């Protein structure tokens, strides 16, 4: 049984960070002018920290593993006819896990940002957006109906835009932010249409109500009786929204560009939280997707594409953050594949695990970037980790965790295994095609090996020897090529890195226990059945690959040699990796071109039709006056004639008409 009295804490969770954001928005600028950066940072950390404390305070409610949920109803919001979207917050077992995730990483990364952004600019807007993001994400996670989820959905989208565009006057940054927003907008439209379709199909948008109906013995079948088309449509539309938010193909194009924002943003939003919103949504609607196999097939197909695209693009990127971004793409695809396999539990598990090691990786990368004065090209950062001890440790732990090299210490290992198991055990049917889970299983396993490659390539660059040409170039941000060694200067950054370096393996250990599974599945927990027979060879393979890659890339000479050998085989700038698998071209044709055509047509219509009408009316007026003014001859006998004529006509009219 859960303790319902703690439900009163639920509304405070999003409200506190929102208030902090408001405070920062109003007073932050003034505080910065006075030089109190610490006040700004402190307010932000307080906002996120109190939210985390409140989340922890919910622990005694006994939610983990329980099948009941805390509910708090703030009152009606939109009620029209049969449509009722109230302000109802609910937290069940899985939702509580998300709440803890969001608040934990929100707090950690806000603290990290205090150190990272110290010498940056416009920090008040940054921290306000960051807090607002946490608040919106909490609304999204705690919402009980689809409309309230949409509120949080939009909120995180806006904050993402604001934060990506933080360096708004640098080349390409506003465009990247706009791109993220635009692609998300496409998803939002599909999401909204999906909400309407859900309402049309089932008469309600309340998640708890829908889940309850689906779970009841006969209700589950009755729900879909006669409404299959609408249900299928709803499933696909909502999927569109989820794809956009969680960067699945073909709506994944914004994630790599989103790295234009500051690194803490990438860590929080584009690794741990916002991009997981899509997965969370599908998880909440798992009863719907269980009934629509075609939608699951689509998820699997797009997931596979994204998995491959992400892994292969990460292999050749030179920007640290872009490597990690494409890695995120791959991992999100894994979560979606779990959902396609009808295993929301596995998806949630990997969601949590990925958050840990990816955040660790991003924050380590951020530390590197911060220390190297915003240099992000790995080729120019050769050996930088040698002078950054804490970061170096964090980076190693993160890479090992990401590649899953040491099972009980890699935050992603058991979670990935859970995903793979669920894939192996299911089949994917839809659109007349059927694929056995085993086939997909082996494909995914193979692609996942690439993660060892790209992660340790990065590590090789950063931890290995310096490139000979590293210090001869100017840095991107206008500093001269300086020869001072990068140093870890921020205690906040170091603190957070240490915390995560400990937390990540801790989570790995936790993830091996049935307790975590029980938490995520709300009741039926079981330890992961690891087929060590299958898995051990792959672990060994990954270790070998990682070691080999590191060996090659850590040495400048071997690195150059390999790249020279590879360039002989390359497609010379026209291959899939160079063209980002031609997705940008697809967008140019499918989205940009039609919009341009519409704009051109409208311009034609407006300029010619409307302005033509204006000209026409002016011409008409002028024409009429020109003709009519000929009656003003100035000669009185003309006027006399007119008068006489008129009198004659009037006489005729009066006399003969009346007769």
């Amino acid at each position, binding site marked *: 049984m859960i303790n319902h009295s703690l439900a009163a804490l639920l509304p405070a969770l999003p409200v506190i960070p929102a208030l902090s954001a408001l405070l920062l928005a109003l007073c932050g600028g003034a505080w910065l002018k006075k030089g109190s950066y610490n006040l700004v940072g402190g307010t932000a950390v307080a906002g996120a920290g109190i939210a985390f404390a409140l989340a922890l305070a919910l622990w005694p409610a006994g939610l983990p593993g329980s099948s009941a949920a805390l509910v708090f109803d703030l009152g009606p919001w939109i009620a029209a006819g049969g449509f009722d979207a109230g302000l109802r917050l609910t937290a069940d077992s899985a939702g509580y896990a998300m709440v803890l995730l969001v608040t934990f990483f929100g707090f950690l990364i806000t603290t990290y940002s205090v150190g990272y952004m110290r010498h940056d600019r416009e920090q008040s807007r940054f921290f306000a957006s960051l807090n607002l993001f946490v608040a919106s994400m909490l609304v999204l996670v705690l919402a009980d109906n689809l409309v309230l989820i949409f509120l949080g959905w939009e909120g995180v989208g806006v904050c993402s835009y604001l934060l990506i565009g933080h360096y708004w006057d640098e080349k390409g940054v506003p465009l990247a932010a706009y791109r993220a927003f635009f692609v998300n907008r496409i998803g939002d439209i599909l999401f909204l249409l999906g909400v309407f379709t859900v309402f049309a199909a089932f008469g309600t948008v309340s998640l708890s109500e829908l889940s309850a109906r689906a779970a009841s013995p006969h209700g589950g079948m009755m729900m879909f009786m006669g409404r299959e088309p609408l249900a299928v449509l709803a499933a696909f539309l909502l999927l569109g929204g989820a794809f956009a938010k969680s960067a699945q193909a073909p709506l994944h194009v914004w994630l790599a560009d989103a790295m234009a924002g500051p690194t803490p943003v990438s860590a929080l939003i584009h690794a741990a939280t916002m991009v997981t919103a899509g997965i969370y949504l599908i998880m909440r609607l798992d009863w719907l997707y269980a009934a629509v196999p075609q939608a699951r097939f689509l998820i699997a197909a797009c997931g596979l594409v994204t998995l491959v695209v992400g892994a292969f693009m990460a292999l050749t990127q030179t920007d640290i953050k872009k490597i990690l971004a494409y890695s995120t793409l791959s991992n999100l695809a894994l979560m979606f594949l779990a959902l396609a396999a009808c295993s929301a539990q596995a998806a949630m598990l990997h969601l949590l695990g990925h958050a840990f090691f990816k955040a660790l990786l991003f924050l380590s990368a951020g530390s590197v970037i911060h220390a190297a004065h915003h240099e992000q090209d790995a080729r120019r950062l050769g050996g930088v980790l040698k002078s950054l001890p804490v970061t170096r440790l964090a980076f190693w732990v993160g890479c090992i965790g990401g590649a899953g090299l040491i099972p009980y210490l890699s935050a992603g290992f058991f979670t990935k295994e859970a995903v793979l198991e669920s894939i192996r055990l299911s089949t994917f049917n839809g659109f007349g095609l059927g694929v056995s889970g085993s086939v997909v299983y082996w494909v995914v396993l193979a692609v996942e090996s690439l993660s060892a490659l790209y992660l340790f390539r990065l590590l090789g660059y950063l931890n290995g020897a310096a490139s000979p040409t590293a210090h001869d170039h100017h840095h991107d941000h206008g500093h001269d090529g300086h020869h001072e060694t990068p140093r870890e200067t921020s205690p906040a950054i170091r603190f957070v890195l240490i915390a995560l370096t400990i937390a990540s393996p801790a989570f790995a250990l936790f993830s091996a226990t049935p307790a975590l599974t029980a938490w995520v599945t709300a009741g039926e927990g079981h330890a992961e059945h690891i087929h060590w027979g299958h898995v051990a060879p792959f672990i060994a393979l990954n270790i070998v690959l990682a070691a080999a890659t590191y060996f090659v890339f850590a040495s400048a000479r071997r690195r150059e040699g390999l790249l020279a050998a590879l360039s002989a085989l390359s497609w010379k700038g026209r291959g899939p990796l160079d063209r980002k698998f031609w997705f940008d071209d697809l967008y140019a044709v499918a989205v940009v071109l039609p919009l341009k055509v519409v704009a051109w047509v409208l311009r034609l219509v407006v300029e010619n039709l409307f302005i033509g009408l204006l000209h026409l009316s002016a011409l008409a007026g002028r024409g009429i006056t020109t003709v009519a003014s000929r009656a003003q*001859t*100035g*000669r*009185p*006998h003309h006027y*006399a*004639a007119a008068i*006489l004529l008129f009198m004659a006509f009037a006489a005729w009219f009066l006399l003969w008409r009346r007769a």
Partner: protein
Amino acid sequence: MTFLTLSNALTVSLVLVLIGAFGVLRRRNLILVLLSVEIMLNGVNLSLISFNYFLWGASELGHYLYMLSIGVAAVEAAVGLAMVIVLFRNHRDVTRTRIARLGETSETEAGAGA
């Protein structure tokens, strides 16, 4: 053969009106225009008296209207002739071409002739 009929009287009246109309429209001298107006009024007065004679025996309202018509004609002639005098005084010319040109200042072009 009766000539004194309403239809004959009205015919005379209408003919007078048409003659007067011709004079109003075509004579260039302003005084002649005024005279033509008097001719038209003459015709109208004739019709007034005729109607009263042939259609009413009990009331002389038609005669009274005739008196009003004369009154108005007198006023109109007086004011019109006063204007003729002023025009003559200023321009020594009372033709309608002169009147048409009254609106011209040194900036506007002179229009075509009468």
